[in-house]
């Protein structure tokens, strides 16, 4: 017998002290009430007869002491949390790691999923071990991490709340002191520490899944978009039906024959599609993982941008804007500039109004205006050293060879520098109010002659107020680059979200199309699994370890529970017998 709460010496001292106290108390003379009787003749006869004839009379005092001492010892020793390894098992810590990777949604031959099998195995692990065994439940998505507990029901409830996540799985950090069991299909996570006992729920399954789906603009065609789709077969050869559908009713159907591990890649022209959400689906016989059978994208809605060019005359700009089919251009002189409600965007050429316009503006040169950064000097022939290819206005735009004669020196504090030389920012962006400023004018550079210039203008106008392509995200925790944004599903349902460092975060465990809106700003989010790693549901690398089966014990709780139970029963028995004067 060992004790969890006390050392053996402390436990022995506790037992001795308790016994001594009880016996001392027992032998303390109970002050009997003195009662005078006329004669003790009859009482003496009765008592002598009873004492001389009853062995119980002689024993009951001893029995009372023994019972009372046993009750006290049971209570006292239960505080020491004793355990007997043969009855309750040894005190150990067990960590159950449940694989919550997307492949755990794969259906098995019995109609259940790998996840349901994993839950059963995890619960059977909870049934094993002794009553002192402490359990901790973790997942590979980093969402669930319980503390160690002996409360199996609590652990069971926690497991019931868990489900596979589409986020990238990672094996959690666990120490080697605990017994670690990893219940997984062995597909998404291959490498586990050597001390981890693996329990496999893997079973081969057929799966055809979408491994890539996106809508991308065609640089050659303003506001022209195409859809790129990859479908891969991870099972035996099969036929797969591919469908692209839009909310407006447009649809593309295609049937392809796919061999084992064969990937079908195709680009679909979406010129016939109205803007909005595009859904791609793939159907195949006996498909075991529905999660990768659907993917979403957003096709920007095409409409002309009403643009007012305010210039004293700029042939390059006017030409570029007039050639753009999606620009409804108006040109005016700075002297005649008036802000209009019918304008979507302004382009100021070496001019800036006194007050900032209510609509976004593209500004060339560094005109003097209170709402703009004032020029603090001039830089001759600045060389472009850095530019941000990730910014939407720089998509497909190469500026490394743009020659600039001179540019204004400005302080870019609180602005986003998109293109810069060592001496000064060259293109800066203000998010609020929304404007883009080039610190050089077109006449003092050859930017207008570059092939990227029309694309740059198109990107700027698109960034100002045109529909954007959806941001691509994987299922799990979705990060939206907007603060205080409202998140909605494609059906218009609001999704709970949180604010983190000026960004909005929400959870999307299933593929889908989401909208994030904050004031006039709106972003689309296409959440797709689209990952060959998850779609390849047969790529398991491990089987159940032999040592993974845990021993079961007869007692389901710690010994102290049974000791207290016994103490309560003895107290009840003692109470019953005492009040009937069976015991003292």
């Amino acid at each position, binding site marked *: 017998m060992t004790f969890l709460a006390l050392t053996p010496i402390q436990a022995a001292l506790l037992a001795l002290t308790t016994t001594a106290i009880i016996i001392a108390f027992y032998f303390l003379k*109970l002050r*009997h*009430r*003195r*009662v*005078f*009787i*006329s*004669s*003790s*003749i*009859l*009482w*003496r*006869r*009765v*008592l002598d*007869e*009873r004492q001389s004839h009853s062995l119980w009379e002689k024993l009951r005092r001893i029995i009372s002491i023994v019972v009372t001492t046993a009750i006290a010892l049971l209570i006292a020793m239960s505080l020491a949390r004793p355990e007997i390894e043969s009855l309750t098992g040894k005190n150990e810590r067990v960590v159950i790691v449940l694989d919550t990777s997307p492949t755990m949604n794969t259906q098995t031959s019995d109609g259940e999923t790998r996840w349901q099998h994993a839950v059963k195995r995890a619960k059977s692990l909870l049934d094993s071990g002794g009553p002192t065994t402490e359990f901790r439940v973790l997942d590979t998505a980093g969402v669930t991490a319980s503390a160690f507990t002996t409360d199996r029901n609590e652990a069971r409830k926690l497991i019931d709340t868990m489900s596979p996540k589409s986020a990238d799985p990672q094996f959690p950090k666990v120490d080697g002191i605990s017994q670690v069991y990893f219940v997984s299909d062995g597909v998404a996570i291959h490498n586990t520490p050597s001390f981890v006992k693996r329990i496999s729920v893997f079973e081969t399954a057929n799966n055809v899944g979408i491994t890539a789906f996106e809508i991308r603009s065609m640089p050659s065609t303003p506001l022209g978009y195409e859809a790129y789709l990859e479908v891969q077969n991870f099972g035996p050869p099969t036929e797969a039906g591919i469908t692209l559908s839009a909310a407006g009713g447009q649809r593309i159907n295609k049937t392809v024959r796919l061999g084992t591990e064969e990937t079908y890649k195709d680009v679909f022209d979406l010129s016939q599609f109205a803007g909005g959400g595009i859904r791609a689906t793939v159907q195949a016989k006996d498909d075991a993982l529905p999660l990768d059978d659907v993917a979403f994208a957003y096709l920007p809605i095409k409409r002309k941008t009403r643009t007012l060019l305010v210039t004293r005359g700029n042939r390059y700009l006017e030409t570029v804007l007039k050639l753009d089919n999606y620009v409804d251009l108006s040109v005016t002189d700075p002297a005649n500039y008036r802000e209009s409600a019918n304008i979507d965007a302004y382009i100021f050429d070496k001019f800036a109004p006194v007050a900032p316009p209510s609509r976004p503006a593209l500004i060339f040169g560094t005109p003097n205006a209170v709402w703009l950064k004032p020029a603090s000097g001039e830089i001759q022939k600045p060389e472009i050293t850095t530019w941000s290819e990730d910014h939407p206005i720089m998509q497909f735009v190469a500026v490394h060879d743009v020659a600039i004669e001179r540019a204004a020196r400005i302080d870019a504090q609180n602005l986003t520098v998109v293109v810069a030389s060592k001496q000064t920012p060259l293109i800066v962006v203000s998010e609020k109010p929304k404007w883009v400023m080039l610190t050089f004018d077109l006449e003092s550079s050859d930017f207008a002659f570059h092939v990227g210039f029309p694309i740059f203008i198109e990107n700027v106008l698109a960034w100002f107020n045109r529909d954007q392509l959806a941001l691509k995200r994987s299922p799990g925790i979705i990060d939206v680059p907007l603060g205080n944004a409202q998140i909605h599903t494609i059906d218009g349902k609001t999704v709970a979200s949180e604010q983190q460092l000026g960004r909005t975060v929400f959870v999307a465990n299933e593929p889908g199309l989401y909208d994030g809106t904050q004031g006039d700003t709106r972003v689309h989010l296409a959440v797709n699994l689209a990952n060959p790693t998850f779609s390849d549901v047969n790529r398991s690398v491990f089987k159940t370890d032999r040592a993974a089966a845990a021993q079961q014990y007869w007692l389901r709780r710690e010994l102290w529970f049974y000791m207290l139970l016994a103490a309560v029963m003895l107290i009840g028995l003692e109470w019953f017998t005492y009040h*009937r*004067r069976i015991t*003292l």
Partner: protein
Amino acid sequence: MSTANVTLFDDEFLKKLEYLNIISKRLFAGRLRAERRTRKRGTGLEFADYRAYVAGDDFRHLDWKAYLRLNRLILKLFEEEEDLPIYFFVDSSQSMNYGDPSKLDYARRVCAALCYIGLANLDRVNVISFAGGVKSEMPPQRGKGRIFKIFRFLTDVTSGGETNARASFKTYCTETRRRGLAVVISDMFDGNGFESALDILRHFRHDIFVIHIASHEEINPRLKGELQLVDSESNISREITITPSLLTAYRAEFAKYCDSIESYCGKYQLGYVRTATDFPFEELVLKVFRQGRFLK
């Protein structure tokens, strides 16, 4: 003397005694003559027999008419009239000072009542208080007027000491040889056994009547819990735990004890009456009369 004793024999009590006296006369009409004739021939008025005159006889009792008829001296014999000695042995051991009212008070009342009736019948009444020995005794009294003397004597009787009836009776009887009615009023708690004590009285040919007094607490004790029982006579204590079974055993033992006394009395044709202190004493006196032994 306890405060209760002051009012032990009050006017109310005297009225009850008179009432008992009248009732007893009605109950035993024709037999309640004061005189008790004995076989002894003496100087009484009632003619008993004749016998031949012998020298020395009192010639005043010669039947001269018979001498004239028969020419023989014949002596007329008359029955000797004799009063009945009644000995009231009142147990005044410490055990009698128990109960509410105490057994001693009850015994005094019963004794007083019986004494009054005895005195009214011109019997010679003796009252003896005993415990370990004869504690006090009252000289023989006769006539109703002596009742107050008896009251005083009974009032002065105090409880104390251990009971030893055998020694007490033996002492008294060896000093007083005259046979009579011995009325023993006691709780019968004697460590030496009451049978041997009654044997002494039987040995001296007394007519014996036992009035066994028990208090309600003795008959049906209402004890509970952990107790130290202290014997009021010996002061010997004993710690016990009262259980229902123990109380049942005690009651059985008490009944057995009473039965043993009663069977002893029955065996030797002794009068026996058992009473509790909550039983009206006048009822008890009548019960005694109904037994027919007290008055002859």
